[in-house]
């Protein structure tokens, strides 16, 4: 039978060419590093569903116990195909938290959104399209907009999202400058009543009313 590596051999492997030139504190760490490399927990992987569960928990800020149930339920039932969201750019570590603050990614885990909307382009942005998912929680209605093909706007000009009811009343739900990331929006009015979601281009004119320059529009439907 072949002889297994000794701890000393492990440590020598880790130290590599610098084995004789290690600083005392580095040398003192070698046994710990060797032990960690041999520890199964160092190599353990979280389950594939954890990412969805975390995004869902963050969106709803719900306690773990509820999510455990959701995970268990999901494991028990046949998996439906979930949308895999691939970031278009590698996230620099320093930018990651900014992304957390600025854009929440739509979740395909958990019980799903309360409302959804498919957004079609208008003549102002014929190459654009999008979708939105709405989750109702204690803070109101959190809307995650996934739009693509919206052109980058000149400085000062911005996109604004709105919900509109049957009477034509518009409620602004947030502004953004790019569709490169998922856009987190909030509404205090229910999409059950305000059933149309639009995105407009707004000029820097201090006018709070909609410009009417709609680039995306769609009906919000119960999820």
């Amino acid at each position, binding site marked *: 039978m*072949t*002889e*297994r*590596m000794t701890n000393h051999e*492990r440590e020598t*492997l*880790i*130290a*590599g*060419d*610098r084995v004789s030139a290690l600083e005392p504190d*580095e040398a003192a*760490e070698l046994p*710990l*590093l*060797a032990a*960690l*490399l*041999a*520890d*199964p*927990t*160092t*190599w*353990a*992987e*979280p*389950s594939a569903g*954890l*990412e969805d*569960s*975390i*995004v869902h*928990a*963050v969106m709803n*800020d719900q306690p*773990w116990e509820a*999510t*455990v149930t959701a995970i268990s339920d999901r494991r028990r039932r046949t998996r439906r195909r979930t949308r895999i*969201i691939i*970031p278009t750019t590698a*996230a620099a*570590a*320093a*930018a*990651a*938290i*900014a*992304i*957390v*603050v600025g854009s*929440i*990614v739509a979740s395909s885990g958990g019980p799903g959104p309360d409302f959804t909307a498919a957004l079609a382009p208008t003549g102002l942005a014929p190459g654009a399209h999008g979708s939105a998912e709405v989750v109702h929680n204690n803070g109101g209605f959190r809307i995650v907009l996934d739009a693509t093909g919206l052109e980058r706007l000149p400085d000062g000009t911005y996109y604004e999202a709105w919900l509109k009811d049957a009477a034509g009343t518009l409620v602004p739900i947030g502004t953004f400058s790019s569709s490169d990331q998922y856009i987190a929006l909030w509404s205090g009015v229910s999409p059950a009543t305000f059933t149309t979601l639009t995105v407009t281009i707004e000029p820097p004119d201090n006018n709070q009313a909609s410009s009417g320059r709609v680039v995306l529009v769609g009906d919000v439907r119960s999820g």
Partner: protein
Amino acid sequence: MRLVYREYGQLVYAVAHHVLGRHELAEEATQQTFVRAWQAADRVHIDRDPAPWLATIAKRVAIDIYRREARRPAQPSADVVSMVDRGRALMMQSTDPDSLDAVWRVRNAIDELSVDEASVVRLQHLDGLTHTEIADKLGIPLGTVKSRSHRAHQRLTDLLGSLRKEVR
């Protein structure tokens, strides 16, 4: 959040798993870490590397869960007994930030390796295989195993050295 999770999720999970020794508890700790990070995100400077901040949250959450589990009435389950014993054994490490920082650093360094290199390192250290056994197992020449091993360990040494003071 997905981007942050993909960048740091395995690191957070590794720290939690090291403290708690159980997959389900480690996942609970990982989720709590990201939820707490989310709740506190507005107090974080966006220009700073979030790794030390997340590592701190992960360690605290894992230790909190360990303490919660240790307070639960003892159950005659071998799994629980094993977990508690392990938790007790690791408690000295758990309260020592340097030890958990080391977990974070090692896992981070492993994630920086190529899949082929990480596979060789895993077989060497976790499974205790020799170069020859790894060559047989992977069906690749012995020389390839040796070169991957050498390259991987050199990279680990570089990464662990450069990371030495960054996480703290």
